[in-house]
């Protein structure tokens, strides 16, 4: 593929991923949130294919394919099922309003740019511009985990953080050795499954998946 075209495609994917993170901050329904996560993962998979094509690293195709299977299809599907069983379809409770969350997300993007600036100079991959974006996605995912109150949305925040991380891995090193990548992937899958199990247990025990009830253990 032409370097310019692949460069443009990479930029497109990365910007789309960041915008989807922002979109996820504004959603008020779990189904929407999971869709945003699935589409974000779709762009991540596409990005892996583009980078694989333009750098000739065939193991990235494998990575993209696993992303498609696990993060675009598997996890969102399983979590939607869980959400239905928990009757958690409606509102996503946040401790902060939407405008406030968006403002803070914007601030986090600026922070990400400041932090990654010294790093950009030291890396010479075609994807190095993605570094700031990936840091933004990580920070926004973390912010989502901190402000949301439902077990399920906290989990989506964690998964989005991990999307940002994979973006980061790709942007500074075109991906780690394949064994490691696959291992990390199944680990993420396990995290999602186990978090799902405990979300179910919490909802049975407390009759809610609102994690603000989990504030009893203290000194």
């Amino acid at each position: 593929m032409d370097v310019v075209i692949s460069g443009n495609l990479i930029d497109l994917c990365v910007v789309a991923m960041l915008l989807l993170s922002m979109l996820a901050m504004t959603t008020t329904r779990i189904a929407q949130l999971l869709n945003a996560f699935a589409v974000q993962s779709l762009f991540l998979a596409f990005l892996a294919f583009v980078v694989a094509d333009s750098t000739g690293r065939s193991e990235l195709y494998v990575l993209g394919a696993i992303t498609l299977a696990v993060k675009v299809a598997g996890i969102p599907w399983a979590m939607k099922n869980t959400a239905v069983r928990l009757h958690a379809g409606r509102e996503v409770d946040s401790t902060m309003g939407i405008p406030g969350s968006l403002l803070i997300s914007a601030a986090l993007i600026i922070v990400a740019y400041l932090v990654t600036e010294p790093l950009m100079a030291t890396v010479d991959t075609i994807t190095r511009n993605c570094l700031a974006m990936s840091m933004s996605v990580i920070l926004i995912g973390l912010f989502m985990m901190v402000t949301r109150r439902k077990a399920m949305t906290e989990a989506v925040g964690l998964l989005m953080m991990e999307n940002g991380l994979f973006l980061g891995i790709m942007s500074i090193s075109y991906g780690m050795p394949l064994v490691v990548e696959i291992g990390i992937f199944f680990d993420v899958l396990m995290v999602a499954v186990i978090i799902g199990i405990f979300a179910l247990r919490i909802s049975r025990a407390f009759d809610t998946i609102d994690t603000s009830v989990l504030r009893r253990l203290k000194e």
Partner: protein
Amino acid sequence: MTLGVELLIIIPVAAALLSLAMPSGKTAAVVSVACSAAVILVSLPICIKALGGEATEYGLWYVDRLSAVFILVIGVVGLMSAMYSYGYLSRDVEEKEISSKDERQYHMMFNLFVAAMLSVCIVSSMGILWITIEITTLVSAFLVGFYRRNSALEATWKYLMICSVGITLGLVGITLMYASSSHVLGDDPGALNWPVLYEAAAGLDPTLIKMAFVFVIIGFGTKMGLVPMHTWLPDAHSQSPTPVSAMLSAALLNCALYAILRFQMIADVAVPGFASMLMIGFGMLSLAAAAAFILISKDIKRMLAYSSIEHMGIIAIGFGIGTPLAVFGALFHIIAHSMTKPLVFFSAGNVIQGYGTRDMDEVRGLRKTMPFTAFMLGAGTLAIVGLPPFSVFVGEITILSGAVSAGMYHVAALTVVFIVLVFAGFTRNIFKMMPGDVATGAKVPRGLSRSLPMALLLVITLLLGLFMPEGVSNALWSIADWFSGAV
């Protein structure tokens, strides 16, 4: 190539499956004990070879002197906890708190947990090391939430969430380290393997390494219990079954420490002094916060959890100082803490099951009600706060003299102040439970499966404090020289 290192994973995993297939909970417990003993037997030749200076390296595996120390500690702590689990869980079954099926599931998870922790110490690639650390979180989450009480669920949720975020940040660090090596090692598929990275450490990009180590110490420090990322730790330690608390404290925290040490060794070559500063800073913060919380603790297991944070802080300071003497002290302190803390946890477990409460204000007359437990708890307390002749004292005094001889007087002085505070808090909280009349409602737990591991641990911690076998001391000195030679 013979089957060697793999056995350390195969045995516990096989034992996990076997204990699920056992007809009763008690036989499953026996499987766990046998498995832990087998793990120690298998690891001995590998570890002795490694401690002699000859690293085992093939395939995915890499075992050197540093790994050997951690493998042996995990083996011994696993064996003691497996023994103690036998009596502890059968008591829970008798009281109808859990079913026999739960007990079998417990032993399955217990063995998987041992396998996960051992795998942390024997893999070569830093990426796979990350995966194994994450697996320890996932497996142990089931053990922390074993009682399915609301409070246990809360602790598990916090544990899963906080450690997953922490470990994600740790992966950022690993990625940055991988990137820092790209211009030296290029596309080498072994570029994440620790020996390869260590060899090439001098040529790694310093900016990236600095950033990487910050992420690593925050990420893995979460798991190790460094303040301010420690918030999951007191909850998880206090809510899990007591043998699991002992495992978390004496083995799991060490695994995270092991990961940090591997990175520190690389960072010390690439950017001398940078990692040390962070280790001392986080260590001191942990020590200070833990001392404060120990003073106000009411729940005995939360207090022991803060004590683990304290000792992790002391160990981090030791490795941070980085002179051979301090590193020797820190290595010794790892062993001392891991042999002493389970003793205190097990005694606390007896008290909790006997009195049915974790609140130290509600326990009175311990000495007359449970003389053996009272003796063990008293001895364990004196050992863990660092009184001579116990081994923790030797570890602390060596780290302190390391700090003084390195000219870091302020570090030494602050450490002493906090250790004294911990001493005050611990003795006040524990010894007020001792006097008084026999508690009539108490159901005194008995059994060899409880007393044997406690007695063994007491003997070990005492012997290590009184005289150190020359082999142990030589091995630790060789690691200390190697570790600090990089500084």
